[in-house]
């Protein structure tokens, strides 16, 4: 074997080694940081922000999230039927307003005919928000009756969550109508956590792997 042939073989072995190391490093990165973020999303994060999967922390966080989502302030507008719910006991909304195709009611029974852009003053008067509505008929996003496992899975499924990816889900914690749950008007109980506590639990759940708790 002459020198040039030896050099060629040595170069080829080195290239293959680099390729294998490269693949292994990529896999290691994906496994370490694989909490559901795309590479682009991760690239935008500071190293300390990149989450690590943690099923225990994730499930614990979702228990807190679930306690809020199943409270009347959230669940009342995520009914299993086509009529919103009302009150601390989540009974059917008086007057039986219907969801309609877009979630904004039907005919003379549209949500914003009574629900103003702000809360109406007085005890148990209609709460308000400029964006008041139910989820639309083609994506009902039902909370009522869902177990923690079912709801967690549903929240992560873009076909059932309003086409939201992880980034959009995280942003949704600050949605105006979500936050309206913490400004319910006179005579209504607040959700069991503050909005800050809810948001922290929501983000923790999502960024530690978004594990769904097992049903008992």
């Amino acid at each position: 074997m002459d020198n040039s042939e030896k050099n060629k073989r040595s170069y080829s072995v080195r290239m293959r080694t680099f390729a294998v190391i490269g693949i292994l490093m990529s896999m290691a990165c994906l496994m370490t940081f694989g909490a559901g973020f795309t590479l682009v999303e991760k690239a935008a994060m500071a190293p300390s922000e990149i989450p690590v999967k943690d099923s225990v922390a994730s499930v614990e966080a979702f228990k807190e999230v679930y306690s809020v989502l199943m409270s009347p302030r959230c669940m009342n507008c995520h009914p299993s039927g086509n009529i919103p719910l009302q009150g601390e006991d989540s009974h059917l909304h008086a007057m039986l307003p219907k969801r309609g195709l877009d979630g904004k009611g039907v005919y003379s029974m549209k949500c914003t005919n009574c629900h103003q852009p702000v809360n109406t003053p007085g005890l148990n008067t209609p709460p308000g928000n400029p964006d008041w509505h139910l989820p639309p008929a083609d994506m009902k996003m039902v909370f009522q009756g869902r177990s923690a496992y079912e709801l967690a899975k549903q929240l992560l499924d873009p076909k059932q969550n309003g086409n939201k990816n992880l980034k959009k889900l995280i942003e949704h914690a600050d949605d105006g109508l979500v936050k309206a749950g913490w400004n319910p008007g006179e005579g209504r109980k607040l959700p069991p956590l503050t909005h800050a506590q809810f948001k922290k639990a929501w983000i923790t759940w999502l960024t530690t792997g978004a594990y769904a708790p097992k049903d008992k």
Partner: protein
Amino acid sequence: MITLNINKKTHRVDADPNTPLLWVLRDIIGLVGTKYGCGVAQCGACVVHLDGEAVRSCVTKISRAQGKKVVTIEGLSETNSHPLQKAWLDLDVSQCGYCQAGQIMSAAVLLRENKNPSEQDIDDAMAGNICRCGTYLRIREAIQLAAKDQKNG
């Protein structure tokens, strides 16, 4: 001062922007066809149209009505000839009459959006308008009659 467009007329009103539209209609402008029922959007007696939607004027602040078109029962037609008004008379729908302005204004939105409403559509649209005299069956019949009239006319 707040400028309001009511029944195609411009009114300049000296009132707090948080004043309910119903108060301005009845007490300042003098359009008393729209009635006060419950004051908390539960009965439908105060329904008027705001840019075509059947809002409850007892909880709608005049600040929300600014720059929009308000139509009250007095402005539904110029000669009381809206198909619903004619049907209401033909079938003697009203008993005490207190809720009827709100009933007609709600029904008008239904007929605009659905030219041929089924009984279920009528119930869905009118579920928020309460009648203490219980004229519901005549209201439903009158809406069906008005729908036919609208189709033929």
